């Protein structure tokens, strides 16, 4: 009996580890697509973020995190009158150069969440064995840029003068 319980505990812990690894894969590997979703109010971007998951109920924090990550490192394209934007960071290498900052920034409940707000309801598409969940997020890019400039991650336009 003791042996069976022990085996069950081991199996459960393995499943839990795998599940959290999967979650990590989706968020920390930054598997998402980002595109322009319209003209935001002054100081913000309106973007549509498509996040991927085994289940359709992807946490809203993950989608917000993807949106902020996209604005900083990917930039986004736009069509039909929507303006494409370049990433805020000068290069993707900044993520590694400032690893300590970004670890805390993108952590669960990290500061990145305060720059993003979900607008509207998610759109769910089943793609093969996984789900693609799209949501429109408003990212406060001016405040985000100021904070990143303060942290030395992004260069200010007037720096050096």
């Amino acid at each position, binding site marked *: 009996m003791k042996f069976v319980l022990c085996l069950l505990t081991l199996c459960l812990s393995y499943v839990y580890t795998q599940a959290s690894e999967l979650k990590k894969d989706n968020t920390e590997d930054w598997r998402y697509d980002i595109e322009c979703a*319209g*003209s935001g109010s*002054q100081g913000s971007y309106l973007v549509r973020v498509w996040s991927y998951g085994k289940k359709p109920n992807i946490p809203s924090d993950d989608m917000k995190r993807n949106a902020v990550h996209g604005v900083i490192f990917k930039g986004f394209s736009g069509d*039909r*009158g*929507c*303006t*494409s*934007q*370049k990433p805020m960071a*000068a290069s993707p290498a900044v993520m590694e150069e400032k690893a300590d900052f970004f670890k805390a920034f993108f952590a669960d409940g990290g500061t990145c969440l305060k720059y993003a707000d979900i607008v509207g309801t998610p759109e769910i598409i089943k793609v093969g064995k996984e789900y693609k969940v799209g949501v429109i997020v408003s990212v406060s*890019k*001016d405040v985000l840029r100021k904070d990143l400039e303060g942290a030395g991650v992004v*260069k*200010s*336009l*007037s720096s*050096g*003068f």
Partner: protein
Amino acid sequence: MKKYFLAIALCVSALAVFGQAKKPTLMVVPSDVWCTDNGYMEGYDNQGTLTLIPNYKIALQTNAELELVISKIGSLMQERGFPLKDLSASVKSIERMSAENSVITSKTSGAELAESPLDQLRRTAKADIILEVNWTVNSTGPKKSITYNLRGIDAYTSKQVAGAQGTGAPSFSAETPVLLAEAVQDNMDNFTSQLQSHFDDLFENGREVTLDVQVFDNGSGVDLETEYDGTELTEIIDDWMAQNTVNHRFSKTDGTENFILFEQVRIPLYRPNGMAMDTDYFARELMRFLRKPPYNLTCKVVNRGLGRALVIIGEK
């Protein structure tokens, strides 16, 4: 004790000032195309040729959309820590200064302020980087959209250093000023991103400037082909340029015995003592070099802004 604190504070503030490069001034002006489309061009007879020039004063006084665009760009740039020089305020300030200067006289002799024709000609609104803006309102039935174009042009090298353009989403209901404000806002980040790349290049490779060298026709017989120890003056100036530019980068675009045009001259941002360097100082260094033996040449330096200067050989 108080003295020490004061001395330390002074040293720290001096270091902070010395460590900063000269900040270029930026000004938004409507493009010539926009001025032509909207009837703000004025023609004058330039020795038999009709030349058109934009009348910014009338455009600023009568076109509300232009005022909106300029102030929107200005406020967005200010948010990014880079306030712009205002065209309207510059035009007014020049007029006021001209009026004031014309009535200033000295107490003792009643002398007026010295002013050459060149001084008068130079009293115009200017900036180091000109932001040229142009837009058109497109109408398809009831739908309206804005095609917007913003270009940043270096006033001294005439190079486009930043640009953003695009056509906004068509709208049935939005008024033109709303669409315009949206167009400015949507394109500003891409514009400032390119401007940032230009500034990064400037910090890495030095400021790109233009230097003119000319000769006074005073009958002294000295020109740029005059030889010193078998070397022509033009070659001597070339060597000096190579030694004093960042990574020896400059282009001798044109030259005769009477003038040399140096373009894409990369000058250091700082002097050896740490203070900020501009083209005027760089040209004065050349002037000091030519004043020394064996050349013993008298030169005049004419400052044409942060990025251009003229050295005239022969006289002051």
